[in-house]
């Protein structure tokens, strides 16, 4: 694809913004995959499912440690609200940035709505980016990744490059027992 990066700045901004949002969503996806569902990070939202009717599929064989249902569920929400799968499966060749930009709005608006509805996000660090911060001894390496001239012992002082994102609350919908999460969106037939 031949993109002139000097032309159409407005459209490209939207595109970049959207692509940024998409990568963020993918990170969240990965996050979800890496951890058990219903992260007990903060006071749990009101339980919806009856205890007698487990929402999760029964435990998978030993090789599979995590059920893919939560990831599938998120994909489904993103497809329904943001046409996420449709968009990523499009071949962008032959379409103008204006056309792609129009569709990017659908993905951005819907993706943002989904993110806000089901996740509460907060930056890991509250300081402004590109300012100097000091990490004390025993800082949490999972929360803060040090890069570059990593030598000696903390406290470390360095430039905050990215504030990081933390999910403080997950509030995914509950799925009915027997709901096939692999159907991200059903085919639609108008009678």
């Amino acid at each position, binding site marked *: 694809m031949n993109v002139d990066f000097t032309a159409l700045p407005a459209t490209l901004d939207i595109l970049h913004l959207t692509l940024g949002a998409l990568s963020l969503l993918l990170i969240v996806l990965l996050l979800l995959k890496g951890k058990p569902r219903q992260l007990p990070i903060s006071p749990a*939202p*009101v339980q*919806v*499912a*009856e205890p007698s*009717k487990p929402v999760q599929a029964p435990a998978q064989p030993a090789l599979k440690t995590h059920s893919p249902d939560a990831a599938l569920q998120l994909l489904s929400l993103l497809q*329904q609200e943001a*046409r996420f799968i*449709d*968009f990523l*499966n*499009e071949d*962008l060749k032959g*379409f103008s940035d204006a*056309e*792609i930009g*129009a*569709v990017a*709005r*659908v993905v951005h*608006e819907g993706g943002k709505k989904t993110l806000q509805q089901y996740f509460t996000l907060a930056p890991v660090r509250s300081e402004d980016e590109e300012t100097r911060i000091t990490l004390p001894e025993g800082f949490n390496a999972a929360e803060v990744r040090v890069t570059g001239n990593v030598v000696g012992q903390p406290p470390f002082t360095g430039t905050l490059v990215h504030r990081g994102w933390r999910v403080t609350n997950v*509030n995914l*919908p*509950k*799925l*009915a*027992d*027997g*709901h*096939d999460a692999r159907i991200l969106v059903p085919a*639609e037939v*108008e009678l």
Partner: protein
Amino acid sequence: MNEASRFAVGIDLGTTNSVVGYVDLQADAEHPAQAILPLPQLTQPGVVENRSQLPSFLYLPHETEVAPHELVLPWGESRNGVVGVIARQLGSKTPLRLVASAKSWLCHGGVDRRSGFLPLNAPEDLAKVSPLQASAAYLAHLKAAWNHQFPEHPLEQQDVTLTVPASFDPAARDLTVEAARLVGLQQLTLLEEPQAALYSWVKASGDDWRKQVNVGDVILVVDVGGGTTDLSLIAVTEEEGNLQLNRIAVGDHILLGGDNMDLALAYRLKAKLEAEGKALQAWQIQALTHSCRDAKEALLTDPDTLSVPIVVPSRGSKLLGATLRTELTREEVEQTLVDGFFPQVQIHEHPRQALRTALAQLGLPYASDAGITRHLAAFLCRQAEATVDMFGQPQASFIKPTAVLFNGGVLKAPLLARRLMGVINQWLQQAGAEPARLLEGADLDLAVANGAAYYGYVRKGHGVRIRGGIANAYYVGIESEMPAVPGMEPPLQALCVAPFGMEEGSATEPSAAEFGLVVGEPVQFRFFGSNVRRGDTAGVLLEDWEPTELEELPPIQATLPVENRRPGEVVPVRLAARVTELGTLCLEAIPRNSDQRWRVEFDVRNA
């Protein structure tokens, strides 16, 4: 009031959304904790989410449409249709199976509200439901959600306040109560929605509310919801050194709200697209309406936004090349919504057509004039005399509110709220009065449910209570005995059976006038209401009146059972009214020389 009631629960059974609020009566009595009940509901087949609002829609799926196990709620499978977000979603693509606006049908006197006729255009093989059943279905869902969260304190044992539009007639109030009884709610009270909004404001202001209003204030409550607009006036008086709130007037039932606005914008954009040679299909208009709702909010909230792009993606999986794109500009929103629904009119400019003109029409009697400000002007003019009893001084040509409280999602938009305030204040200024203040601080979506829950707490003897009684005087038509003149209706007299402002728990003496009832046969009476004739006492017989003073309501009907009487016998009866503790009007027929009382039905089948 029941000792077992742990919570005061307020249910806002809205035209488009329902909300449940509650106050814990056993917690801190001075500062009761208040909360909104999360409402688990299906958002799509097999997916359950908590929302604070339950969309008041009922969808009747085809047997093959969704597998039963996909319609499971935390408390069990949905039977006889699904309600909430999923109903609205499925119904947007299959409208012929969707029941909407059941509440508006509930106050539509031209239909039998207990017979199943919804959805209106449903196919023959669909088991249709009545407006009453649909309302009961929403209440059943709300009850189940409550009992799921508070299994120790079932809703049936709590004090429940159910809100109704101030403009609901006695029949619609009775039917609302009947719907609640159908799902087993017994400890019930009705409360008018604008009053609930004011209670919510009082609660939110804490002790401060006494500083924000003064004796002599007239508070105008404007409630513009998704489907209806409801108006009320509340006067502030003083009694033994304490401020008192008195609801002194309510407006007509106006079927006009936020949904009309979204639709108006969508059709404007449709015209624009068609001018560009792009023809739209029905599903695209639907999607357009949906996008307009979000775009409208952006444009009405942020004064710097000049236009919002509107994109209607294709239905198929190919997005690129098939997506419709246009934009909604600030100018279009201002013309369509601000000038279209809130036109800058003079106080004497009223809706072009009277409401409720044809009772027998099938279909909801939507307001034919979209100008909310014109409806408001008509209301204020009509109620010019409403405070004479309280403050003595007669108002000039219209009643001048000194404070305004907004309610309903539409007025969350600053641009619309500002315009409405501007129009009201322009009327006041032209009449040489001080501008009205805006009472702020309520969540416009949840205020009614919050206020209704707080009212349950107030009924326990805390805080200030709004006094009002019934907001209409009611009359029974008597055709005078005069030889029929061809082409002329026999002159009609109106007997006042329930005076304006009758309070809960009060009753009138049986009328002096008697009516002949035929034993064993239903007898219908013409029935009238007036929200302006404040001075008529029970038993007053009106010979003539201004056409605008009395509004004819659907006829009422009394039946004397045959027991101990001969069928066909004519028995003279007198009429008496009482207002029940739960807030409904009850008319009774009392046969001469008897203590028996027979209930007069407001909702007459096959009216």
